[in-house]
């Protein structure tokens, strides 16, 4: 009968009076300019605050240059006691330096990448990352030799981290927990099973979860999926929402100026389809023609678009440029330190999200915390709608429908101009319970408790 990882007979956290040691597999840790970086940073900080020594394992900064870039301001708020080990791993599929290409790759770049992805999955069943397995396994074994670990926490993606967690468990019986975030066996975008239990991925997932101390996911629907898939592990599945960083909130520093033109904003990684974007822009166009309040309004997109060779120049950017006459613009990524100032210039937020009931996104919390009116551009039964329910300046979940979204833009424009300071404060208060620090602090406490309970069993 499988059970959570135990370290029978081993000196537990606080062994020999020392601070317990966490190896934290967090590929995407700052300075990676990725949305997961905030969660990872807070997790490491909370463990440190709760008396742990934390060794973060991630990849070298150069690797993020190929992906969505780096933001060194993110690192500023990492607790200085956190030790960060950066492995020399790169996403070969995203390589843009042609001098690093073989002649074969240069002649046919996309077929070469397809073949690479196939090779990678022979090592571990995950495209783009599978061949990192050996390096990650070696790294955790080495770190454990240098300073014995009391717990390993693996944050996914990449899922190949699970192989390293398993290796350390097999070889040294170091207990581990998994921060699965969006899960693996659930396709959160389409809302269906991503792979069966008897597939290679399915076997990996089951093996890993059977011995994990704890499993974190970002929302209730994903937790329900895991509890239903592995009923015997249901008690170890916990919802740890993403939340927002208090310093991203702009406060009430900006007053709308309809004469100069209201400003709607989208801030986040652009991961939605071009069809989705087209509909949003169509709705924006319709709304501008529908209400004089929007006639001179602007719509600013900020955040990362595309990666590898297409970074900053994907078809999304073309669509945005094509809507320039409608006041639409793309201003590139925003450094973490400038997030609050960016929100402060805007009058309303546009929440464009993929997926449905299994997706919450981190953006929704930050958007709520701005206290600004929010236009939803996502499916009706999206989990973000559950989080937003009760927000006084939200225009509601109306689906990805041009006419409905146009109405929502109009409503948000009026809310931006007509809302009172009280309503604004009430909207910000709606987000209070989702402060990242509060969420992660509780999650870390609970995980440490579970570990202690596991040891005494």
């Amino acid at each position, binding site marked *: 009968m499988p059970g959570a990882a135990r370290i029978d007979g081993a000196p537990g956290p606080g062994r020999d009076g020392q601070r317990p040691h966490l190896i934290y597999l967090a590929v995407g840790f700052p300075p990676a300019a990725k949305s997961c970086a905030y969660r990872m940073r807070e997790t490491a900080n909370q463990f440190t605050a709760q008396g742990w020594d934390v060794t973060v394992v991630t990849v070298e900064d150069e690797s993020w240059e190929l992906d969505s870039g780096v933001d060194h301001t993110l690192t500023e708020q990492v607790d200085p006691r956190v030790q960060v080990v950066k492995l020399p791993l790169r996403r070969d599929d995203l390589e843009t330096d*042609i001098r690093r290409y073989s002649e074969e790759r240069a002649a046919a770049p996309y077929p070469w990448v397809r073949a690479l992805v196939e090779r990678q999955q022979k090592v571990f069943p995950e495209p783009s990352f599978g061949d990192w397995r050996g390096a990650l396994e070696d790294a955790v074994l080495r770190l454990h030799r240098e300073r014995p670990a009391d717990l390993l926490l693996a944050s996914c993606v990449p899922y190949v981290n699970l192989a390293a967690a398993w290796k350390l468990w097999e070889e040294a019986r170091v207990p581990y927990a998994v921060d699965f975030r969006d899960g693996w066996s659930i396709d959160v975008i389409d809302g*269906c099973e991503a792979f069966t239990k008897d597939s290679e991925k399915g076997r990996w997932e089951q093996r890993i979860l059977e011995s994990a101390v704890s499993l974190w996911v970002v929302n209730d629907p994903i937790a329900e999926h895991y509890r239903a898939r592995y009923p015997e592990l249901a008690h170890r599945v916990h919802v740890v929402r993403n939340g927002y960083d208090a310093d991203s909130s702009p406060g009430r520093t900006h007053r709308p100026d309809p004469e100069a033109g209201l400003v709607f904003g989208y801030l986040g990684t652009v991961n939605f389809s071009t069809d989705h974007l087209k509909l949003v822009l169509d709705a924006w166009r319709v709304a501008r023609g529908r209400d004089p309040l929007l006639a001179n309004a602007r719509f600013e997109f900020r955040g990362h678009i595309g990666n590898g060779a297409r970074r900053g120049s994907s078809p999304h950017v073309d669509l945005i440029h094509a809507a320039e006459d409608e006041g639409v613009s793309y201003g590139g990524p925003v450094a973490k330190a400038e997030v609050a100032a960016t929100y402060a210039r805007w009058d309303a937020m546009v929440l464009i999200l993929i997926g449905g009931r299994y997706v919450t996104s981190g953006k929704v919390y930050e958007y709520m915390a701005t206290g600004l009116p929010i236009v939803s551009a996502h499916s009706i039964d999206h989990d973000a709608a559950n989080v937003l329910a009760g927000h006084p300046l939200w225009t509601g979940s109306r689906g990805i429908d041009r006419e409905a979204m146009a109405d929502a833009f109009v409503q948000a424009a009026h809310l931006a101009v007509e809302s009172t300071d009280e309503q604004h404060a009430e909207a910000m208060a709606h987000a209070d319970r989702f402060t990242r620090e509060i969420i992660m602090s509780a999650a870390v406490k609970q995980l440490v408790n579970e570990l202690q309970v596991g040891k005494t069993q």
Partner: protein
Amino acid sequence: MIDVLFISSKNSPISAVADAVRKLEDAGAGVSFAGSVSESWLGDLTDKVEFAHTHQLPRANKRRAVDLPYGEQVWLRCKTDRWLRTRARTAHVLVALDDGAVYTVWQLAQRNRTAKAVFGFAPALNAVRDINEQGGPARPGPFRRPVSLALSDFGRAFKRIPDATERLLTPRPVMRRSLGARLWRLPLRAPGVPEALRVRIGRRVAEAMYWAGKPSGGAYALALTASKISDTAVKAELLEKAATKEFKRGVDPEFTSRAVQALLANGDRLLGEGKYEEAALALNRALVLGFHRVSHIDQLSSPLAADAKGYAEQFHRSPAMKTIMTPRGRLRPPAPAPADRPLRLLVTTSQNDNFLFHILDRYRNHPEVEVRYLDMAAQQSLRKATGSDWRVLQERLGGDPEYADTVEALMRPHLDWADVVFLDWCVGPAAMLTTIDPGDTRIIVRLHSYEAFTRWPQVVDFSRIDDLVFVAEHVRDLVTEQVPQLRGPLAPRTHVLHNAMPLSDFDREKTPDARYNIGLVGISQVAKDPLWAVEVLRLLRAEDERYRLLLVGGDMDPRTSRATRKYLNNFMKEIEPLVKSGAVLRLGPTDDVAGRLTEIGFILSSSVREGCHVGLMEGAASGAVPVVRDWPFYAGKVHSARTLYPKGWVLDTPEEAVRRILEVNATEEAWRDHAKLASEYALSTWDWSVVSADFDELFFGERR
């Protein structure tokens, strides 16, 4: 100044290029552009973006590049371009704007060893920033290949000597002459030539013919070679290549059946060897070729229309196809409609919901029905499963249980919820859905008309469908003839139900000149054969110049196939003078067909095939007098346009159409009488208020 050289092999979005150039200039770079791109696009680009220098690179391929990856083709075009070499020699950053330009940048970077070489705009900007941080660009060194590359190029050239020699012997001027081509075909026919040599010569002659601009000669050479060899795999490959090339240029090749037979034989052989995946791929290619749209959809005739059963039997003789088409049935019958709660109806399709609006609207507002709608194209995993046509075959052959598991995982939640599934269009999703046993859910599939000319009815397991709905009797006949399952013991019930069309809004007052306006609604497919309508107009105007032809709807999309483009070009040429003279009015697409029909006094159906022709029915409802060509695909059969429409509406030739129009229009009163009768007939037969009762009966099992 940092010199940046953009190299492009295809059109990039101009706004993105402009944005990148602006950022690079802000960072202290001067940007030049070299593109193996169209002149018109380069003109548009240079109108909007100011480069330090621009240059058009050659676009024509070298012959030896024919079978090379695209990147190498681009390099072979450009490698001797003097401008490119000069600029690349001194550039500090070489930038590939697309995948086709990467190899050219790679080669240039081998010669200019100090330049940065990157793929994409953002990396270019990073490279410029790096150079700035390093205090400026390095001085370029000599521009030459390193010894290692020179040696490998030499080795490659040496290996290609036999190819090069053969190409020398089959130059373009020789192959363009019929004598040269005939001489080269001799060894393909000659007895006693070893098979491997014959194939090698066949391929080379075909390549030479294509290169010489004689594609039919190329296809002929491949087909001829295939006819003289025994290796099933090679035979199938040669014939498939020949047929695919012909289809690409819009030609329906004579040897399609041979290609199909070769692919089927190869599929049978592979299946015998237990190679399920390869067998499924071969069979799928046979189906794709045998039911290619150029043969059946983008033409004015189809071998299926002539003899559906005979045509389909070529597939049914294959043992592997027999396995695929073996009905697997369902373990349990569908449960009866629930008595204690609303009927749960899942309406589903893949993207095309054109004929579902009114059905959805009715049952969403029906107190005894709970509706869910699923667009399979909107969900990536479902889109992938429905698009994996060969995997459906592989699963049927017994070699891909994982596919069935995937479909099970995707569809079972929907099947568990629904009492009835109504799937519109009998294409990929129907094949995918019938991979699994539906449990006790009742499955209804509607087949319009287009699907009858595709491969899908051969692949769907109809024993897992309870009710198959057609929009007309003649379509039911055609499909039943070509699908043995529909004639077998596990066949579904079949029904003929008209489309859901609210027609009452079409009955509006006509404009005063409508009597002399002949209308054709919908001209976006070759099957609509609008040239037939033009012929009617010509003959009419010879009698009375007041007649005009009003074309309502978007044009054919020339990108659909070369065959479509050919028809469209011909059509445009024909109507150009008529449009100029005002005899033809191209009204284009509209959301208000009912409004347009107020100007139309006669409504035409000039098509070679139709399911029910919605535009004609709407026209009739509007009070336009119907004039229907006896659709040639079905003419003379048990069911046809003549059995779908009232007597008198349908005729055979443009001359008869003209006679009917002139007779009806002899007086305004006669025209009004005919129009009134047509409208009354349409409204009492096809209006949604009437047809909806048939759908109630279909879903509930009784009329409500």
